[in-house]
Structure formats: C-alpha cells, structure tokens
C-alpha cells in the first residue's frame, strides 16, 4: 500500500529525514515512534503530499505522490498534529465542506452520518467547532480524515493533549479503524504505540533506527530492564548481598530517599529475572523491602540502546558484552570504590 524508498528531506543544511526505507502492506497498523523533532511529522507530511521530498520516492497505492498527487491523495486520510478545523463552522457544515472538497462519490448524508457515528460525534454535530473540547476536536479531525473512506489513514499524534479517558477512547477507535484501513500512527510515547500497533518504526534524528513487531521490540528492550529496589537496611550490607546474587551484573547505590531506607539500581544480566532472588535474600535477613520493580524503559534509553551500537536488529548485545560479566574481583573493586578499603 505504501512504499517508501530512500526518502530524504533537507531544509537547507538541516537534514530532517535521511534515507528512509519502508513498505507497509494493506491492513497493517504501523506506529512511528520517536522523540519530538525526530522527523515523524515530516515523513507524514511528505506521504500526504503537503510538503515535497528532496530525494527518493514515496508511493501510495501504487501512485507516486509527486507524479500523480491527486490519485495518491485520494487514497489517504490525514489527521495532522494540529487538527485542521474551521472553528467558525459547525461539525456537520465542516464535514460537508470536506466531503465537497474531496469530491467524494458516496451518497453524502448516509456517508457523513456513518462517520459521525463511528467516531462518536453525533451529539455535537450541530455545535460550532470552536466551542468543542479538545477531545471532540480531535475526533472531528479523525472524522475529516475518514471522509471519502480512504484506504490509508495517517494520524499524527492523535492522542496528544487528551485526558486518559479520551486517550483510551481514541485508542479503541484506532483499533476499530485498523480492521478496515491501513493505519499509520505516530507518537513519542512507547506504551501508546504498543497499545495500538502491531508493527513499530522507531525514528530518531531523521533516521529509521528499528523496524520490527511491537512484541519483538519490547522483548528485546525489556531484557535491558533495570530493577529498582528500596529496602530498610544498612546500605553497605545490602550492596554486598546484592553483588553476591547470581545474574546481577551491576549495582548502583542511589542513597536514601525515604527515612531509614536505601535505594539501588540493579542491572541484571541478559535474560535473567533476579527479582525473586533479591526478595528471598532480603527476607532471609529480615530486611523489609519497601519497593521492588522493574523500570519501564524510557524512550531516551531505547534510543540510546538502539543507536549506540549495543543493540542491533537481531537483538544481540555486542558492545556491552564485556561489561556484563563481572568477576568477583570486579565486584570487590566496586565495593572498594564506593566505600573505600576496610
């Protein structure tokens, strides 16, 4: 459905998108994940024909967006980051306008009724858009993209600025739309993308750094999870115990954040779950564990791990390998470094 080859976009000396390659087949729900300014919106704007590309090509439904813009655009419904709404129109008037603008061939009223019901804006259809809440405006934006029933839906950060209830509703809506459309969603929040997309493209600094299923990516990334521990016990002794656990590759004492307790960041070796072992050791010594959890990998960490070479597409760690195997000597060296020689 969508084929992008060596796509690049430059603004003067600034490279916004660098050699992007991907193809999306019909019926897929794909997420663009990346921090702000990574190039997600730029790629979307190029795919929808709003801005042009500097190099490479983009085809939608077999039509090149530069050579056959009208045919290509007919396949696309686009919700930009900021929903493109005429605030002085009512919802119905606005959707009628979009219907006329796109020159849609379906019967007008049933088509727009159907869309209003799908995105659940039937009860506000006669209100002025400027008086609607952000969540409703976003839905009108999605409705606008759906007019003409395009094969591909491109939604740029559809849940940004919404409250949690609205976010869940929009997610459900996207999941429902994914059954009949090819959908591209962008976000800078990992869990957001994981909730709706089967496939994720991670974009950083204008480059696609990973392209995999959500499952694979999270599996690969979760092996990197740091375990956080807060325990009521003397720091030095806990450190000794923790370093004695098999599967622990590194322990960082973080000091005390709560009266009488100490915090630690514990890095496990690859594919090992050390939480059970930590708990037993602590309970053996009657040290109350106040908190024990694995840290969700933040987007920054994902990018770091994806871009600094410690992660490659097959999921194997390479650069960090030597650091992972700590010998007993290393461990005592850590202890010494932290507390000085006893």
């Amino acid at each position, binding site marked *: 459905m969508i084929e992008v080859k060596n796509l690049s976009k430059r*603004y003067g000396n600034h490279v916004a998108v660098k050699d992007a390659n991907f193809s999306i087949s019909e019926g897929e729900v794909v997420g663009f994940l990346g921090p702000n300014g990574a190039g997600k919106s730029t790629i979307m*704007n190029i795919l*929808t*024909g*709003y*801005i*042009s590309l500097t190099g490479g090509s983009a085809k939608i439904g077999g039509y090149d967006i530069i050579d056959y*813009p*009208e*045919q290509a*655009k*007919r396949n*696309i419904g*686009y919700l*930009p980051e*900021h*929903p*493109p*709404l*005429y*605030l*002085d*129109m009512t919802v119905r*008037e606005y959707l009628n*306008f*979009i219907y*006329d*603008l*796109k*020159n849609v061939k379906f019967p007008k009223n049933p088509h727009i009724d159907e869309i209003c019901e799908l995105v659940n804006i039937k009860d506000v259809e006669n209100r002025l858009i400027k008086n609607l809440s952000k969540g409703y405006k976003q839905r009108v934006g999605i409705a*606008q993209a759906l007019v003409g029933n395009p094969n591909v839906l491109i939604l740029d950060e559809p849940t940004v600025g919404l409250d949690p209830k609205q976010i869940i509703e929009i997610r459900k809506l996207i999941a429902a739309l994914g059954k009949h459309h090819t959908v591209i969603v962008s976000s800078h929040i990992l869990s957001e993308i994981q909730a709706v997309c089967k496939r994720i493209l991670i974009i950083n600094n204008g480059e696609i750094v990973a392209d995999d299923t959500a499952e694979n990516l999270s599996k690969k990334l979760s092996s990197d999870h740091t375990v956080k521990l807060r325990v009521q016990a003397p720091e030095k002794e806990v450190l000794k115990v923790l370093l004695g656990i098999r599967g622990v590759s590194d322990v960082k004492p973080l000091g005390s954040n709560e009266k009488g307790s100490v915090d630690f960041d514990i890095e496990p070796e690859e594919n090992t779950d050390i939480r059970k072992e930590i708990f037993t050791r602590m309970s053996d010594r009657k040290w109350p564990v106040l908190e024990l959890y694995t840290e969700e990998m933040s987007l920054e960490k994902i990018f770091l791990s994806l871009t600094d070479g410690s992660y490659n597409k097959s999921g194997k760690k390479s650069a960090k390998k030597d650091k992972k195997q700590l010998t007993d000597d290393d461990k005592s060296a850590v202890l010494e470094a932290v507390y000085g020689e006893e």
Partner: protein
Amino acid sequence: MKAVYKREMRAYFTMPIGYIVLAVMMALMGMYYSYMCQSNYFNISFVFSSISSIVLFIAPVITMRLFSEDRKQKVDQALFTAPVKLINIIMGKFFAALTLFMLPMAITLIYQILLMFTAEINWLTYLCDLLGVALLGSAIIAIGMFISALTESQIIAGIFGLAVSFFIMQIDYFATAVGLEWFKSICTAVSFITRYNAFTAGQLDFSNCVFFISVTAMFIYFTYVSFDKKRWA
C-alpha cells in the same frame, strides 16, 4: 473549487467582515449617488468614477484573511492534502472575494432603475462601468490574495495590502511629480486609476481590459507559485 468558494462565502457572512464591506461600500456609493442627484446630473458613471480609491482600500480588507487565516488555523493542511488541484483552491478563494466585492456593485442596479424615472439612461455605459469595476477589482483582489498567501498574520496581510493600494493610487501623482518624460509614460501605462477612468468615461478600450486581466492572471500565478514553492522548499 465549488467547495472552497462556498466555504469562503459562508465565512464572509458568518464573520462581520462581509457586512462591514457591504455597509461601507453602500454608504459611500449612496452618498455619491445623492450628491449626483442633488446637482441634477443623472449619469451613474459619476458614482463609479468617484469610488475608485474606495475600491482600492476595501479590497485588502476582503483579501487579507483568504490564506493567512487558513495557515494560522492550519486548515491549509486539509486543503493541500485533499485530492484537488492547487489552482482550484486558489480560484475558489479568488472568486469568493470577487463575489463579495461585486455585491454592492450589483446594488447600483437599483440606483439605475430609480434614475430611469427622471432621466434617459444609457445601459451600455452602465455595463462598461460594471466591467471596469469588475476588472479593477479582480486585479486588486489577486494582488491582495498573493499578499495574504505570504503571511500567517491577517493584520500584516491587511496593512501590506493597504500600502500596495496606496502606492497604486499614487502612481498618477508620481507621474506629474517627476519631470522625466519616460518615467511619466511608464507611470501612466501602469496606472490603474487612469485605465479605470477610461471605463467610467464610457470608453471600452481593449488594451485596458488586457491590462487588468494580465495583472489578475499574473498575481494568481504568483500565488500558485508561492504555495508550490513552499511545498518544495
């Protein structure tokens, strides 16, 4: 094109701008009409020749919001990603502005009918007046639309448009102020007012028609290029 046209016409009359334009134009035209009748002169061309400078100043008010408002509200993303040709969007907006501009002119038909009771009137010169004002209007609207395509701010588009109108109005003064013969001939050649006055004097000069149509086409093309260029930048 029809969708954009309809939307723009609607916008003019949901916002006060359409009514303001109509009210100002009708008040001033009515004023000149009553002057005319008071001085026992019954030729409506007088009204048309008197309003040339008003036309120049009302046009930027009509055009200032055409594209700048869309850009500010980011609606341009919906327009330019819709499966329509760019030129259709531009022409839809252009014709909407021209329609609003011509509405008060159409009302002069009532003046003309009233005049029929008191004097013999020439319908051909009246048509010539209407054609002249339509051509002058489209040229200035095209210029104003181009200015509005350049900025996100309605205010800047409006002020810049007024400045351009002021310049156009002053061209005839430049011609007399500077003593150079070649400069004078250039100024008269590009003078909107001189060419417009020919219409209100009842002369249908083909070259004047071509001049206004060319200016209109040129600025519509500039508008087109400014968007096309933006897409390529």
